[in-house]
């Protein structure tokens, strides 16, 4: 709201500079957003909160400034006063068909000579960002800025039968508005019509056919009250926001139209633009109903945590136009307790409850008086969301494994989401900012892939990124950890060879997370199976299952996706773990420690040749089922194909650890175990021992 300093000083004798006013009003709830010079005047641009339509006027702003500076604010009359000389003769034929939508309509006729308005008026309008149009239109805008009440003027000679009818638009009725656009109206909209046609979209914008022109001789001025929610709907439906609609949709003062009309007629005569005919009609089917709010003094400090002195309560409320009357509660439980009955002025549509009045007292007495205290603790705080601690643990592990933390947008391109949808419909956004943010991510990987691509394109050779975040599906939200790794696993170093990341690296990450969350060493089985999925290379894609629950998928990113996301040709490995599923699969019992082994372990290696189609897991299974109970661990430590190994075969080397909790194992025992294992390998897999 642009407010020229000179204009506000017409109402309140504030000596402070515009900057000083801005600083003080900032802590009184009316922040100054900008200050510009306009000719000799300074224009203060205040940010008016959505609940204070009364501040969209010079008078409203002056009242706030007056209260803040403890100045007397004229007019001295109470809220909703009737202006001097108000004496409507009801001679103009005005009909309100929809009193719920238009609670008051004041019309006054005048004979006019249309021309430019005086320079001082034009200057003020321009300072407030409103283009001067003609003396008549300028008067309506001037009054709106000064008093807050939007006004309109019709060319009376263009109103058929001189009638003013406030009615709903007819189905399909059209009207050309003042901005030159032809608009099709609906019965949800209110119009001001003559005997035949809609001439104005009530409270929003006037019509072109009854517009004031140079030829206009007689006008009818309008000052009305329109229902806020109705104006809001109409304005939204038409996509048309005006100075008038902005005010009406937030709620105007029903008592203001007579004051606005008298002011308009006064300006008409003073500027020589015309002469009132004396005919005024005031149709007022839904009069202002004063609200009252009970204010208990104890509640003020109960809510604010500071006492507001009685003198300040009286000063602030009087200054803002609130009427107060002392009372006592007549009935239990508060019988005999004094309270103030507060009647807010009719322009204060925001005051409905006691707390609203307390806010007025707090802000005008000053929040700077607030002491610094702390809320008392009534009970031990309940535990936090367990996901927070879990996610922190996963985050710490991934950081330690060299992955950097990333955060990407939860909405992504439809095409990027497609390979991850697994046959489900994407969750699309109805009004996305752009196609890049069209659907909610079904996976964290598309965002991570783009982040990897960004880094690769900016010259980073080795990129390891992870994200812990929410995935969206038609059946619900789930928390996941995604990670992506490309480039070198071992960087260039003077002491050794570089190595590019491969499948075993990304699997190792998954294995580590499983070990630390599931305690796989304690026997929670992790099953890895090959999967086919559109975003991973076939034959280099695996799924992790724990207790038959799918926990994660990982492998080499499909080169087609890598290329589509502008990644260089290097292999990219990605993985994603469903953290909620991981939590569900995690053992619930608390940790119990085991005693350390008291007897030494025995380590034996065995190397065999088997068909290279045989999976390590199968061989490991054969070893385990043939082995005695004393076999503690089986670990592949070499896999070799090439010279000395027949085509179609592979040399596998296993390191077997035997141990008993009860005694030292003998060589014979261990050898017997090894013999049984080797026999089984020969029997089951035609293995040849090397």
């Amino acid at each position, binding site marked *: 709201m642009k407010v020229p300093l000179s204009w506000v000083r017409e109402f309140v004798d504030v000596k402070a500079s515009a900057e000083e006013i801005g600083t003080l009003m900032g802590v009184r709830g009316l922040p100054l957003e900008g200050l510009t010079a306009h000719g000799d005047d300074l224009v203060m641009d205040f940010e008016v909160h959505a609940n204070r339509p009364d501040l969209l006027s010079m008078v409203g702003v002056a009242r706030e400034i007056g209260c803040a500076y403890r100045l007397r604010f004229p007019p001295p009359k109470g809220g909703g006063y009737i202006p001097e000389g108000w004496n409507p003769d009801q001679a103009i034929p005005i009909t309100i068909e929809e009193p719920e939508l238009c609670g008051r309509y004041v019309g006054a006729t005048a004979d006019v000579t249309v021309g430019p308005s005086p320079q001082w008026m034009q200057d003020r309008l321009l300072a407030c960002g409103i283009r001067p149009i003609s003396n008549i239109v300028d008067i309506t805008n001037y009054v709106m800025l000064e008093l807050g009440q939007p006004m309109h003027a019709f060319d009376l000679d263009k109103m058929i039968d001189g009638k003013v009818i406030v009615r709903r638009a007819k189905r399909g009725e059209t009207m050309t508005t003042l901005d030159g656009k032809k608009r099709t109206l609906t019965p949800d909209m209110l119009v001001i019509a003559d005997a035949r046609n809609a001439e104005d979209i009530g409270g929003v914008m006037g019509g072109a056919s009854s517009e004031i022109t140079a030829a206009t001789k007689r006008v009818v001025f309008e000052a009305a009250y329109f229902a806020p929610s109705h104006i809001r709907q109409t304005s939204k439906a038409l996509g048309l926001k005006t100075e008038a609609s902005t005010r009406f949709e937030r709620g105007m003062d029903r008592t203001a139209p007579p004051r606005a009309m008298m002011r308009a007629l006064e300006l008409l005569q003073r500027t020589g633009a015309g002469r009132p005919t004396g005919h005024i009609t005031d149709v007022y089917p839904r009069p202002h109903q004063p609200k009252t709010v009970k204010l208990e003094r104890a509640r003020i*400090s109960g*809510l604010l945590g500071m006492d507001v002195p009685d003198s300040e309560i009286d000063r602030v409320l009087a200054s803002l136009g609130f009427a107060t009357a002392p009372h006592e509660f007549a009935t239990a439980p508060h019988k005999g307790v004094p309270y103030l009955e507060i009647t807010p002025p009719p322009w204060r549509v925001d005051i409905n409850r006691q707390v609203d009045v307390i806010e007025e007292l707090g802000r005008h007495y000053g929040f700077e008086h607030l002491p610094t205290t702390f*809320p008392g603790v009534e009970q031990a705080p309940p535990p936090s969301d367990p996901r927070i601690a879990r996610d922190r643990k996963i985050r710490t592990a991934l950081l330690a494994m060299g992955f950097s933390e990333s955060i990407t947008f939860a*909405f992504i391109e439809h095409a990027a989401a497609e390979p991850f949808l697994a046959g489900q419909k994407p969750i699309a956004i109805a009004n996305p900012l752009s196609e890049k943010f069209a659907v909610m991510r079904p996976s964290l990987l598309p965002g991570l892939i783009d982040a990897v691509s960004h880094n690769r394109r900016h010259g980073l050779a080795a990129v390891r990124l992870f994200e812990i975040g929410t995935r969206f599906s038609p059946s619900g939200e789930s928390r996941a950890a995604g990670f992506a790794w490309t480039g070198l696993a071992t960087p260039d170093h003077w002491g050794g060879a570089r190595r590019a990341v491969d499948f075993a690296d990304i699997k190792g990450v998954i294995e580590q997370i499983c070990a630390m969350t599931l305690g796989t060493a304690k026997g929670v089985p992790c099953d890895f199976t090959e999967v086919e999925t559109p975003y991973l290379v076939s034959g280099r894609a695996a799924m992790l299952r724990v207790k038959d629950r799918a926990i994660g998928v990982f492998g080499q990113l499909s080169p087609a996706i890598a290329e589509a996301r502008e990644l260089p040709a290097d292999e990219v490995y990605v993985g994603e773990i469903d953290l909620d599923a991981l939590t569900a699969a995690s053992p619930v019992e608390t940790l119990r420690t085991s005693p350390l082994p008291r007897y030494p372990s025995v380590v034996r290696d065995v190397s065999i040749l088997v068909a290279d189609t045989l999976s390590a897991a199968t061989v490991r299974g054969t070893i385990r089922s043939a082995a005695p109970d004393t076999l503690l661990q089986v670990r592949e430590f070499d896999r070799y194909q090439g010279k000395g190994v027949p085509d179609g075969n592979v040399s596998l080397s296993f390191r077997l650890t035997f141990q008993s909790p009860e005694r030292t194992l003998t060589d014979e025992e261990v050898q017997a175990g090894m013999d049984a294992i080797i026999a089984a390998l020969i029997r089951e897999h035609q293995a040849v021992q090397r």
Partner: protein
Amino acid sequence: MGIDPSIGPDQARALFRTELAEVRDRAALQALRTRWIGRHNSWIAAFMDALKTATPEQKKALGKGANELKKEVEAALDEKSAQLAATRRPANAVDITLPGRVPQIGYRHPLSLVRDEVIEIFTRLGYQVLEGPELEDDYHNFEALNMPPDHPARDMQDTLYLESALTYSDRPLTLLRTHTSAMQIRHMEKNSPPVRLVAIGPVYRKDNLDLTHTPMFHQVEGLVVGRRITLADLKGTLSAMAAALFGSATIRFRPSFFPYTEPSAEVDIQCFKCKGAGCQLCKRSGWIEILGSGMVHPAVFEAVGYDAGEVTGFAFGMGVERVAQLKWGVGDIRLFYENDLRFLEQFGS
């Protein structure tokens, strides 16, 4: 090879000094020692032999000179020996100036750092920390927060809507939550007072990407409800948070408007850079706006079935990105979502 004893102690001294200066290692030092003061075939031995045939006067003069020289040589050799010991390197020595094999460790994301810091502060103050759903229904995001349909305040937060409602929740989910305040309602519906929580997570608004806006950003929401919770309690709590986050405990409340709080206040911290004197960071005002807050509106309590006559409460909401921008001087908010490792590495691990 022997040294001619006839050169006498003075010339011998000069020769020794020259030879000593050329010694670079222990082997050469040992050779030098043998050559000059060894038991056999050394200069001193030869000189002593030569003295046997000299006159008593010559013996007295030269003998004294030879003994002095011997002592001097011994001292010089010991000193050199100590010098060599100090610079000696064993055969398996490494060049410790070569770079080490640095284990790879990931970098933290700044938003996650702020998040952890906030969680730490409020855990210390006895709050429970909660997270909530990111897709919401109209009731929890707006209506229960005193924003009925057609309420002008809905314009304050331009909402992103789903193309079709999701039905897995108790009410149809139609939008991306515009604030973490929706979490307040969900918590109060299920729990009776007192309440002392912070909710944290991503929120979404239809804001174009620019230096200070992204369509997704993160919010910290605080809510305390109890029998005697006041605006002054909010001030204390927020100044404790400001002190922990920015090292500036001086805050001020500016009256504002939010539909779900009354009174409402925007909160500024005194500029931590200029201590309120006015600088570029605080746009010469001495104050930096960091969050919105207020006393929970009675209509919100009514929506969740709390007795607004019995309890009061405060609430606040703060942008995590804004805190990170202020704290670390990040001019462009979009950097938080690019995940450029050159940016992330500046925050360490």
